[in-house]
């Protein structure tokens, strides 16, 4: 019997012939923590009697969720991370470098076939390169910092086949929201989702990250896409690491296989307060919004900013809307500057934030007021997520968010696209 991508990667990293259901102790290729999880990991590292990390070149800590620090408590936790990074000689991405899930692939730390763990649930993003990557808590991160290993249950895999090509005006975010709506927030719990089919095969690198990023919103442990030629070239341009792309065997065993024809997909929106409460954007066209946010580890990449700029060019953000943009990294920001994308966004009325997580998780920089409505390109719309439990958050693609920022109401972006 053949193997899934998850089974192959976990076999090669544990040295045993691993199948779904097996528990393995696996060597990790890279580990990462952010500013909400690293401080506890550093504490656990000390509690465990840790002295040196297993390999400083394979460890990054990223200050992105509350950066620059909005208060003294956060500032002190950031200092704890900086001090630890200096002591251990690990990689530190400080304030303004970007979101962890953009930096890890962009700086070449992860390559196809890798096993990566990160103390952040959206670590599943790197499946966009064909790696097995998953989120862990701070104590698991600390154990990996010391041993270079983690235990994992080899997950069952779900094959998600997306037939047809995504129509104009729809993007990988619409696909991810559509799948979350169909499969539900617990529909892929503990599983590895292998996304495939014509629609997925044609996705560019940024779009692949978006789709895999959202796998955890269906409960999945990992989301993986077999790498395309474009992906391999992208990785070679960024990483000196040697790698062997991993593909599923023809006769691999899947716990479930689901097929969706996405050739008639229309722009999708998740309604408050659950990611799987998804409907067509056009069904919400009367909903007034007060803040529009483009950014995050889901949709803060250059391709996303380009799409938003194409819609906002020559237009003005509605007078009762704040449009907030947080590029996913400094490289993304520089790219947007070089291409003129930034100018278009600023001229339309956007506020551009420091590269990082922006207001996604309620730490700073765009907390909504009581009763306000936000439309966001983020991955979570839980009550209180952006720091105010009486605000409402809708999730959509950068195109839908940009279109809504212009009209002041939730808007199907296709009316702005030729």
């Amino acid at each position, binding site marked *: 019997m053949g193997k899934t991508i998850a089974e192959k990667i976990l076999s090669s990293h544990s040295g045993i012939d691993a199948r779904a259901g097996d528990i393995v102790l696996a060597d990790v290729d890279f580990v990462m923590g952010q500013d*909400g999880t690293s401080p506890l990991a550093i504490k656990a590292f000390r509690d465990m009697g840790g002295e040196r990390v297993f390999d400083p070149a394979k460890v990054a800590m990223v200050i992105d969720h509350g950066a620059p620090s909005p208060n003294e408590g*956060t500032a002190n936790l950031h200092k704890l991370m900086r001090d630890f990074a200096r002591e251990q000689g690990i990689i530190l991405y400080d304030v303004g470098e970007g979101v962890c899930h953009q930096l890890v692939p962009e700086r070449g730390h992860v390559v196809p076939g890798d096993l990566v763990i990160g103390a952040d649930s959206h670590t599943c993003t790197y499946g966009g390169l064909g790696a097995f990557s998953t989120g*862990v808590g701070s*104590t698991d991160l600390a154990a990996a910092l010391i041993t270079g290993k983690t235990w994992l249950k080899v997950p069952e895999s779900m094959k998600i086949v997306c037939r047809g090509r995504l129509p104009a005006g729809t993007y990988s975010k619409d696909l991810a929201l559509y799948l979350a709506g169909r499969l539900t927030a617990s529909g892929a*719990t503990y599983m590895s989702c292998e996304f495939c089919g014509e629609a997925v095969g044609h996705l560019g690198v940024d779009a692949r990250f978006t789709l895999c990023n959202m796998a955890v919103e269906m409960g999945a442990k990992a989301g993986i896409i077999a790498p395309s030629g474009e992906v391999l070239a992208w990785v070679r341009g960024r990483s000196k690491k040697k790698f062997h792309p991993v593909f599923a065997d023809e006769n691999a065993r899947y716990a479930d296989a689901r097929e969706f024809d996405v050739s008639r997909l229309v722009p999708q929106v998740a309604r408050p307060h659950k990611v799987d409460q998804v409907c067509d954007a056009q069904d919400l066209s009367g909903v007034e919004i007060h803040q529009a946010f483009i950014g995050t580890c889901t949709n803060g990449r250059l391709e996303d900013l380009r799409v938003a700029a194409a819609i906002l060019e020559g237009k003005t953000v509605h007078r009762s809307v704040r449009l907030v943009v947080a590029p996913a990294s400094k490289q993304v920001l520089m790219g947007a500057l070089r291409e003129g994308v930034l100018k278009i966004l600023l001229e339309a009325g956007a506020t551009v934030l420091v590269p990082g997580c922006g207001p996604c998780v*309620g730490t700073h920089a765009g907390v909504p007021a009581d009763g306000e409505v936000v439309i966001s390109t983020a991955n979570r719309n839980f009550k209180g997520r952006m720091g105010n439990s009486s605000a409402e958050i809708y999730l959509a693609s950068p195109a839908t968010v940009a279109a809504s920022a212009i009209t002041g109401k939730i808007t199907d972006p296709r009316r702005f696209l030729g």
Partner: protein
Amino acid sequence: MFGDDINTDYIIAGKYKFKTLDMDELARHVMEDLDPGFHARLKPGDFIVAGKNFGCGSSREQAPLALIHAKVGAVIAASFARLFYRNAVNTGLPVVECDTSGILDGDELEVDLCRGTVLNLTRGITVNTSPLPRFMQRIFEDGGLAAHIRKHGGFHLGL
């Protein structure tokens, strides 16, 4: 009693967790966005009972830690999200997976982790629980993953 898909943002909101490592401070805010009076009503040793997919969302270990510091005795749910389940075992919060459909708010429960049962004293019903895998039991019995690593100098899971 809570329903399905209780996420870690509800257990402890992001606006608090990025500021401090003081878990007693975080404990005062558990479940706040969902039920603002929750912490005030909570008595030491109370169980949280919930439906499917408890603890979905972020990887924040502050979620089980804040519940431990709020003196929650155990979380009993129909199922758990993997990150929360793993973090709970690593930090020493008892998590019990079983059919919770027959439990009503205020029922008196007795959880037996060794036998793998939840006894509903109010209704006179016993429900069997899905036991922790043996190697996770080792971590839990050592007092969590930090104590496990300290004790053995690395993973000692008996796989």
